[in-house]
């Protein structure tokens, strides 16, 4: 029991910089929803039931432009293909989880929790209790996303300039700290450099399609350059 709690705390701790980076976005989401005339219940409901930052922003933008329902849903689906890659990457590690655990934990699969879990797998390969670490990270992220979007809604137009504090730098440096130790062989570096360069080239593509494209290209270069890393395979 104590071990589980410790793992949950570790998961939350490792996600802390990412939570800090996401907080202003939650505030901005809530404020934008309020300004766009969404009710409090719908705003809080979207954060609680959908729980996907980019998708929620895109839905707001499309709602404001009076886009048709199928267009919004389709766009949200495409944006979420990134999470599908995350889920596929984790397949090997969740094989022995019960379907109930998978169904619950998959709901909370975000960039942030995936990054934290990846780092855990990289540094402590094969250690048991991954799901508790994941759960701690996920609940922490989820809780603060709810708080921030509700807070943003209540503040509405009086939102402080939180979005301009540059707190998203915490996400950048945390991701750097997670990715760099994972770069073990030439193929990893090739993959990273390609994804980096391509993301700069495709930053203005709609609906974050540039991220997905850059990732796929990076993966392709990684495959070309070499055999797969052993590390993810324990």
């Amino acid at each position, binding site marked *: 029991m104590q071990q589980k709690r410790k793992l949950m705390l570790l998961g939350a701790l*490792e996600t802390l*910089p990412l939570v800090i980076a996401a907080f202003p976005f939650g505030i901005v989401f809530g404020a934008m929803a309020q300004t766009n005339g*969404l009710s409090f219940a*719908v705003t809080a409901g*979207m954060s609680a039931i*959908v729980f*996907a930052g980019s998708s929620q922003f895109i*839905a707001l933008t499309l*709602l404001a432009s009076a886009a048709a329902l199928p267009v*919004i849903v389709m766009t*949200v689906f495409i944006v979420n293909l990134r*999470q*599908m*890659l*995350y*889920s*596929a*990457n*984790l*397949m090997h590690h*969740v*094989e*022995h989880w019960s*379907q109930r655990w998978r169904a619950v934990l*998959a*709901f909370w*699969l975000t*960039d942030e929790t995936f990054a934290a879990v*990846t780092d855990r797998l990289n540094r402590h390969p094969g250690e048991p209790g991954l799901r508790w670490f994941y759960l701690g990270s996920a609940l922490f992220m989820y809780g603060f996303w709810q708080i921030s979007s509700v807070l943003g809604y209540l503040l509405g137009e009086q939102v402080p300039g939180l979005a301009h504090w*540059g707190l998203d*730098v*915490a*996400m*950048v*440096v945390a*991701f*750097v*700290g997670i*990715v*760099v*130790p*994972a770069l073990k062989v030439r193929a*990893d570096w090739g*993959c*990273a450099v390609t*994804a*980096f360069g*391509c*993301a*700069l080239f495709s930053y203005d593509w709609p609906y974050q399609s*540039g*991220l997905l494209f*850059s*990732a796929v290209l*990076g*993966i392709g270069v*990684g*495959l070309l350059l070499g055999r*797969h890393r052993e590390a*993810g395979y324990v």
Partner: protein
Amino acid sequence: MYEWLLIALMALVTYLPRYLPMGLAGKVVLPPLLVRALDFVPIAVLTAIIAQVAMVHDGQLDFSLGNFHALAALAAFIAAVLTRQLFVTIAVGLVCFGLLRAGFGA
């Protein structure tokens, strides 16, 4: 009503991509090439995110020395290469960002 329908559909197209691969784990055998490709997902996606958050501000690429996000990321990168410690990397990046802001911030 419309908005709740939207939320329900959004939830569906958000949850399914998150769940389906995990749910199928152990039940399907992926081709070896795909397994190798998926191995690169964390590096590829997280690096692409780093690139865009660090280098793009207000919808524009920013290669200037006034881009503190990028300078902090560079400091973090050096710290990560040297130490491989996550918390050291984060601390170096954040301190660097804070100092730049305090020293040269608008």
